[in-house]
C-alpha cells in the first residue's frame, strides 16, 4: 500500500442528535481521509432516511476511552450511598415515627406537582 492510500484510511467516530432537544449519541464509525469527507460520508452512510439535527465527527485517535481493565473496575464500585436505593431502609424507620418517607418530589418541594 502506498503512502497516499494509507492516509486515506483514518477512523472517525460519528455522533449525532436526532432532534435539537436530544443528546448526542454515538452513531457508528467510518473511514475518511479528513473531517470534511467524514461529515459527507456520515450523511451518506447513516442518515439517508433517519432525521438528524446535528452531526459530529471525531478522529478516533483523539478519543481517550476506558480500556478493559478500567471498565472492569467500574463494575466493582459500590455507589449505593450516592443513590436512592442506598436509602431504602429509611422508609421503615420513618414508619416507626408514624411518618411517611418523603419522595423525591416532596424533597424537591416547589418543583414537584404541587407547584
Amino acid at each position, binding site marked *: 500500500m502506498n503512502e497516499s*492510500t494509507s492516509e*486515506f484510511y483514518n477512523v472517525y467516530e460519528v455522533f449525532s442528535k436526532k432532534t435539537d432537544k436530544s443528546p448526542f449519541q454515538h452513531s457508528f464509525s*467510518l473511514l475518511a*481521509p479528513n*473531517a470534511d469527507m467524514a461529515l459527507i460520508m456520515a450523511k451518506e*452512510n447513516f442518515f*439517508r432516511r433517519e432525521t438528524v439535527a446535528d452531526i459530529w465527527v471525531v478522529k478516533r485517535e483523539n478519543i481517550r476511552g476506558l480500556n478493559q481493565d478500567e471498565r472492569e473496575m467500574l463494575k466493582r464500585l459500590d455507589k449505593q450511598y450516592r443513590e436512592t436505593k442506598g436509602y431504602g431502609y429509611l422508609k421503615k424507620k420513618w414508619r416507626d415515627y408514624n411518618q411517611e418517607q418523603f419522595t423525591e418530589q416532596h424533597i424537591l418541594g416547589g418543583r414537584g406537582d404541587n407547584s
Partner: protein
Amino acid sequence: MTVGMSFNQLSEEEKMTHFLDRINAGEKIEPDDWMPEDYRLQLIRLISMHGISEIMGALPEKEWVPKAPSLHRKLAIMAKVQDEMGHGQLLLRVAEDLMAPLGKNRHDIMEDLFSGKLKFHNVFHMDAPTWGDAGIIAWLVDGAAIISQSMMLDSSYGPYARALKRICAEEVFHAQHGESIILAMAEGTPEQREMLQDSLNRWWESLIMFFGPKSAKETGNSNADKNIMYKIRTKTNEDLRQEFFTKYIPRIWSLGLTIPDDTIRFDEDSQMWIYKDADWSKFKQIVSGNGPQSQNRLDLRRRSYKNNEWVRAALAAKKAI
C-alpha cells in the same frame, strides 16, 4: 473475577473463563476487549464475508438501474443499491477493527477479494437476466438475508449486533420493494407471470444454498457450530432454512407460482419441510469464483478500485485533523 485484582493481572486461562462467563451472561464484547484468538478469527471470517457480500450483492441489482421499467422503479432500486453499499461500509468497518491487531485494513480486504481468498455469498455469483430476477432477489434473497441477520441481532460481539440493527431496519424496505415488484408481475400479463415463474425457477437452488449446508458433513468444516458456542449466532443453517420455508412457501403458492421441486412438502410428524437438497459440490464451485457471473463482477470491482485510485489519492492530500 477475584476481588481486588486487576483484569490485567489475570492469567490467559482466567481471562478465557471470564470471557465465557461474560458472553454466557449476555454481555457484549467490544473491539478492545480481551478475546480468544479463535473468536476473533471466526468474527473476521464471518463479518468480512458478510460485508463484501453486501458490496458484491449490489452488482446484480445495479445492472437493473438503467433498465428498470419506470422512473419510480428506477428510484426505488437505486436507493436499494445505495443501501447495500452502505451496509457493506458498516460491516467492513466492524471487520477492520477486528483485523487491526493483525496489521490489516480495508486495502487488505479488497486485495483478498480480488485474489479470491475472501469469498462472497453464492447468490451474488448468479445471473439476473430479467426484471423478474430483480423482484425475486429483493423478495426472497433479501428475505433469506433478513432471517439470518435478525438471528444475530443479539450476537455476543457488540459492534456486529449494532451494525445489524441498522441493516435490518433498512432490509424491511427492501423486502417491501421486492414484494411490490413481484406482486405487480404476479397480477400482470401472462408474459409477466411467466417471467416471474422463470426467475423463481432460476433462483430456487441458490436460495437453498444461501443458508449453507445442513452440517459439517457436506463441507468438512464446523464454523456454524463454533459460532453457536461463542453466541455469535443462535441457530443452525438448517433451522434458518426451515424458517425460510415456513415463512415464504405458503406465499409463493398463494400467488399460484410453482416451486421447482416436486418433492417439497411439510411433514406433520417431524414438523419439518422435506425438500430436494442442493448440489453442494456445485455450491463449492460457485463460491470459489466459478459461478456464471463471478469473474465479470470481480473484474468490475477490480476496475473501479483501480480507476478510482486517483480519487483516493486526491482526497488524502488534505491532511486529516
